[in-house]
């Protein structure tokens, strides 16, 4: 999903912690969260909950996930291979929050859905953009592979694994609009 965003956030934590002292305070009143009654709703809610200032209130983001949820970027290791790096919801929020007032945008541009009973899988091509002071810092596509479960009222994310597109490995045309 937000691999680039996350990596930028983590790099910033390690390399330039002093820059984050000026991060804007969180909003006092959290916005009303979108419904996730349907899987279409869930897709829209993901975009809405991620998009905005990096340090925005994440009440709605938290509401998308089951308590045991894992957020898992696939990241390149020193040996050139890829491994899952497991984050909790709070871990992701904390990492992204350190981006301060940077503006994040995420949009699911094509979503394939498998659904049966109380379980579902969304195979979604995403597009993310990070802006600072109105200037685009990064813009990338990738694949979000999302497992979701329905508790009888709404859909919640159980696992989300993502991998960003690279010049060597372009997103296949069937996953693009």
């Amino acid at each position, binding site marked *: 999903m937000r691999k680039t965003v996350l990596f930028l956030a983590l790099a910033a934590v390690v390399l330039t912690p002093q820059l984050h002292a000026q991060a804007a305070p969180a909003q006092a009143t959290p916005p009303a969260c979108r419904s996730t009654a349907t899987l279409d709703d869930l897709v829209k809610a993901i975009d809405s909950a991620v998009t905005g200032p990096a340090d925005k209130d994440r009440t709605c983001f938290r509401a998308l996930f*089951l308590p*045991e949820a*894992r957020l*898992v970027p*696939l990241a390149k*290791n020193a*040996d*050139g*291979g*890829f*491994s*899952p790096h*497991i984050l909790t919801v709070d871990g992701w929020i904390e990492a992204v929050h350190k981006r301060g007032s940077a503006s994040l945008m995420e949009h699911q541009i094509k979503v*394939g859905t*498998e659904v*049966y*009973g*109380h*379980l*579902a*899988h969304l*195979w979604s091509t995403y597009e993310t953009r990070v802006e600072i002071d109105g200037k685009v810092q990064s813009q990338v596509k990738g*694949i979000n*592979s999302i*497992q979701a*479960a*329905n*508790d*009888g009222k709404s859909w919640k994310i*159980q*696992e989300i*694994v*993502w*991998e960003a597109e*690279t010049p060597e*490995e372009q*997103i*296949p045309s069937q*996953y693009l609009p």
Partner: protein
Amino acid sequence: MVSAIAAKAHPSRRSLLFGWAFVLSACVSSAQTLTEKSCRTVLDIHQFVQVWNDAVIGPGNRSHACTLQLLTPDARITGVVLDKDGKSTRIAETPQEFVGWYEKRPNETFWERTLHSSVEVYDNVARITRTYEVRSSPTAPVIATGIEDFELVRERTTGAQSEWKVFAMLWQDASPGHPLPRRYLPSTKHP
């Protein structure tokens, strides 16, 4: 049955097998000798369903090395079970808990086949959705059907080789209130 399932953290699909515990364990005894070295690895994602299916077949007390080898160490297997009112409960297991459930049933035989599957893959991440059918033997009556949804990642293992492994699996049995949709069934009847 469902309340007992929840209390024991036992997925319903496998609980259904209790009544079929007495047959054919001798027929699959060779599976007990499996070791990690004889397990098949998944280098091509399209091989996964068959390898997984083969790994879960056999008596409860066989070696489960091949199943474990298909799971990442931090994999999570989550079953969705319904109570009599249709309310769902999720039961999550580690790889060790997943195979441990089978090991506690040494006299039971587990046989499955895949009725339908679909794959999406991009570089090192993949999704597979599989329709399973459970019997106690290839010719025994069907005990359960349902859906397994796999989240897979491709990890570099030894040398430059990369293997596909399950990072998360979510499953639910079919039930009268949730029959399998036509799209998850084979287009022609299996022999």
